[in-house]
């Protein structure tokens, strides 16, 4: 509350310095709060990288630090996507790695040699402090009250919607992207307010940085043109708009094309066409304005206006034509599924299979933003009251971002900044109103006036008495302090909520599973690293590991072994190949594995521990993705019982029981239990008495809690038999009295 009150009593010449100092102290405190609230997982567990994607970023950063920038730029990674490899330099956003590499070298130059892992782990908390500062600047541009910026900064600092993607150890692109997003918007607002080419150019530079950091830059590419377009439609075109937008577009587009992964996309793809279209439109309007200044005739103006509309519609038609004819690439599936929300589920199962790409439920909004979500609409309404250029931006941003965050869970991240800003504007308006202690006149005087007025005017004037009184408002200290007290209470509850959510929901590394023992002590399940370490130490340097794509990055990062597929799902067919190998019988999958030189197969199995994110639960997605490519060989229907149930117990279908995934998951699992009591704790099902038999692969390693199981692919049989025949011979299944019947013979073709 000091934030808002400071204004009322710290006035005058000395007050300015005090205010500046207070501001600085508050901002530093906010940054400290933002950083420290993200450290739960580091303090509780250890300083490691979480999740899946960050492991690749970490690996790439290590490569950058070890080999220098140019090698990193041209890095061909032959340890992923095994037969194909990955042109890493051209298929990643290098901003994150380059940033942490730069920090690493800067610290080294300051004689503070810090391990690159620690820089990667702590990058996101560090940048969240900067995000809070950028939000402060951004909000200050929006609102005239001095407290709004500080409130927005603290909201942004601790709002769980942003913390969820930026805890320590989450070394993902979003870690720096949100800072860049907010800062780019700040520069844009600055540019459009001043009409300055300098700020426009700075905005373009930071836009370029943002493009190098995150694929979500498309959001900026569409939001800024939309803002300008709305301004033009409102009749608010001015030369400031022209200068700032054209500078931003000309420089920003060139800057974005410098990133190899983006390349010619800004010219060729539909997502970027709105920016180009608005650029053309602004040229037209600018030209018309120029001509209009020279010609007074009114008729001429209408002609020109018609001319603008004509050219605009012709350009739009041309754009549509080019898109239809294929010169301009249509929307990518990932982007298109934002509009047609049913698209991904039907056509591209791999997009729908990611849990982050699901629609958001209502409680998630409250969970992630608590009281901010209530203040958010009020903030947008406030912007409507005083509609300047930058308020239009807030309105456009909030509408667009709320739609997107409703469609996809992960886009909650882009909504959070604007929610913080608008909520801070509302709250600061409330505090501004109720914290000002000055009342217009002393009570007695106003009462006297009122009495006099009522005596005189009661007969002549109708209406409510309070309406006649010119001094409407709340001036008693009690009511003011009630409102302010309530707001303070809400703010305190907000802080409590944020801390609770961060501590309980968002601060667990997925690599290490924590569970509570009955006596309350913590038990750590560390099977992932156990198994990856085994792979690292007990296999050949170039042993290829086949697993489902979820674990590709972790295997590459922790086990340091080549993989077939990984989380960068650029080749759907290759993933489908792995899906087919996993979901087919051994006779079918063994040749596939041989063809791809697979040495080990890794599956995740949570049946013993009740770990639900295992491969049997993901199995249907493997089937679906494989079915998309080989509809004749893999059929999803075959994995369901006749009643349409997905079962793993004795009712399971033969296709299910013969699939490689089923066999690998439940191999030897019966032996853990007394006979007939094998139990799968995730599916809650009793397993059949006879476990599966594996012929072409053999168990190589199973971790302590059976979460990770690794199998070695057998070599070809020495005497050229099928693996099934060889294994059954070994087991002595051959009948003692083999009938001397001759099988149907075929010609030997030599």
């Amino acid at each position, binding site marked *: 509350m000091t934030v808002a009150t400071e204004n009322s009593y710290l006035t005058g010449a000395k007050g300015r310095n005090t205010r500046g100092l207070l501001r600085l102290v508050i901002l530093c405190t906010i940054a400290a709060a933002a950083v420290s609230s993200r450290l739960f997982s580091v303090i509780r567990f250890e300083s490691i990288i979480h999740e899946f994607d960050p492991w690749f970023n970490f690996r790439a950063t290590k490569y950058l630090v070890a080999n220098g920038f140019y090698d990193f730029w041209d890095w061909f990674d032959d340890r992923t996507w095994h037969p194909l490899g990955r042109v890493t330099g051209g298929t990643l956003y290098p901003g994150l790695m380059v940033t942490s590499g730069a920090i690493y070298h800067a610290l080294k130059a300051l004689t503070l040699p810090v391990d690159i892992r620690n820089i990667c782990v702590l990058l996101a908390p560090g940048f969240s402090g900067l995000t809070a500062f950028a939000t402060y600047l951004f909000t200050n541009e929006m609102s005239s009250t001095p407290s709004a910026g500080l409130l927005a900064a603290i909201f942004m600092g601790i709002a769980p919607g942003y913390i969820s993607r930026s805890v320590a150890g989450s070394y993902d692109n979003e870690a720096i992207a949100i800072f860049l997003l907010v800062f780019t918007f700040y520069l844009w607002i600055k540019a459009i307010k*001043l*009409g*300055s*080419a*300098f700020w*426009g*150019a700075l905005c*373009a*530079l930071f836009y370029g940085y943002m493009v190098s950091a995150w694929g979500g830059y498309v959001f900026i590419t569409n939001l800024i043109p939309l803002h300008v377009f709305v301004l033009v439609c409102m009749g608010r075109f*001015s*030369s*400031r708009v*022209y*200068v700032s937008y*054209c*500078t931003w*577009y*000309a*420089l920003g*587009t*060139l*800057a974005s*094309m*410098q990133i190899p992964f983006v390349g*010619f996309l800004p*010219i060729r793809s539909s997502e970027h066409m709105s920016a*180009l*279209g608005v*650029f*053309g*439109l602004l*040229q*037209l309007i*600018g*030209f018309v304005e120029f*001509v209009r*200044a*020279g*010609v007074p*005739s009114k*008729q*001429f103006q209408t*002609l020109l206006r*018609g*001319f603008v509309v*004509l*050219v605009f519609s*012709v*350009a739009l038609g*041309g*754009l549509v034509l*080019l898109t239809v004819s294929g010169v301009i690439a249509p929307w990518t599936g990932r982007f298109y599924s934002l509009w047609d929300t049913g698209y991904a589920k039907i056509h591209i199962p791999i997009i729908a299979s990611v849990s982050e790409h699901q629609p958001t439920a209502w409680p998630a909004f409250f969970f992630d933003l608590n009281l901010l979500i209530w203040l958010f609409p009020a903030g947008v309404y406030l912007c409507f009251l005083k509609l300047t250029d930058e308020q239009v931006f807030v309105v456009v941003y909030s509408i667009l971002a709320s739609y997107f965050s409703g469609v996809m869970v992960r886009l909650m991240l882009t909504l959070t900044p604007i929610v913080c800003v608008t909520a801070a504007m509302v709250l600061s308006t409330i505090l501004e109103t109720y914290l000002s202690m000055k009342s217009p006149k002393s009570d007695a005087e106003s009462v006297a006036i009122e009495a006099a007025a009522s005596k005189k005017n009661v007969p002549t004037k109708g209406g409510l008495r309070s309406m006649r009184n010119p001094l409407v408002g709340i001036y008693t200290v009690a009511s003011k302090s009630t409102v302010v007290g309530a707001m303070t209470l809400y703010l305190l509850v907000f802080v409590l909520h944020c801390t609770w959510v961060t501590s309980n929901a968002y601060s667990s590394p997925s690599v290490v599973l924590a569970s509570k023992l009955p006596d309350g002590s913590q038990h750590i399940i560390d099977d992932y690293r156990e198994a990856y370490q085994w792979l690292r130490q007990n296999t050949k340097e170039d042993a290829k590991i086949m697993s489902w794509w979820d674990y590709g990055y972790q295997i590459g990062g922790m086990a340091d072994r080549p993989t077939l597929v990984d989380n960068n799902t650029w080749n759907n067919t290759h993933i489908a190949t792995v899906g087919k190998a996993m979901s087919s019988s051994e006779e079918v999958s063994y040749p596939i594995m041989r063809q791809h030189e697979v040495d080990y197969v890794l599956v995740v199995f949570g049946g013993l521990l009740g770990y639900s994110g295992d491969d049997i639960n993901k199995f249907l997605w493997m089937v679906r993705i494989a079915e998309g490519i080989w509809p004749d060989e893999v059929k999803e229907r075959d994995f369901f019982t006749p009643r349409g149930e997905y079962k793993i117990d004795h009712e399971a279908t033969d296709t299910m029981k013969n699939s490689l995934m089923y066999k690998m998951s439940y191999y030897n699992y019966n032996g853990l239990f007394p006979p007939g009591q094998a139990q799968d704790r995730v599916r809650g099902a009793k397993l059949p008495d006879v476990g599966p038999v594996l012929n072409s692969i053999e168990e190589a390693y199973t971790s302590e809690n059976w979460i990770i199981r690794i199998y070695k692919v057998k070599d070809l049989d020495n005497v050229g038999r099928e693996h099934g025949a060889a294994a059954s011979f070994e087991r002595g299944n051959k009948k003692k009295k083999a009938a001397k019947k001759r099988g149907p013979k075929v010609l030997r073709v030599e």
Partner: protein
Amino acid sequence: MAAKRNARDVTPSPPINKSGTSTPTTPAPVVKSATSKSKDANLSAQEVAVAMWDNYVKATPQRMKLIDVFMAFLVVVGVLQFVYCVIVGNYPFNAFLSGFSATVGQFVLTASLRIQTNAENKAEFESISPERAFADYVFGSLILHFFCVNFIN
């Protein structure tokens, strides 16, 4: 591409566009006064153009004219590049893009400079003096050329 090209083509030659668009619309109005007015406009289309040109030559300061000449030159260069690209094909596409966008970007930056330094727009840009506008222009152009040279390989 389409929108940009249109914007491009429009800029260099105002008189042609005016007469071209005004002719089809003039016969439409039936009301007397409107017809006479539009006829007047139609008759004087050429005159208006000439008057505009005279007015421009007289009223525009020297510095603005200099900027305009540079902008016209940029338009010519851009159109030439585009025509060459259409005729020969766009094989080193990045080279074409960087050359073309250098002209477009420079044109836009110069237009911004012209707007900002124009005395009539004083109210719009009270915080930017002409010197500041020129410094911004230099800053923007340097960035532009860095990116273009980097992109042309």
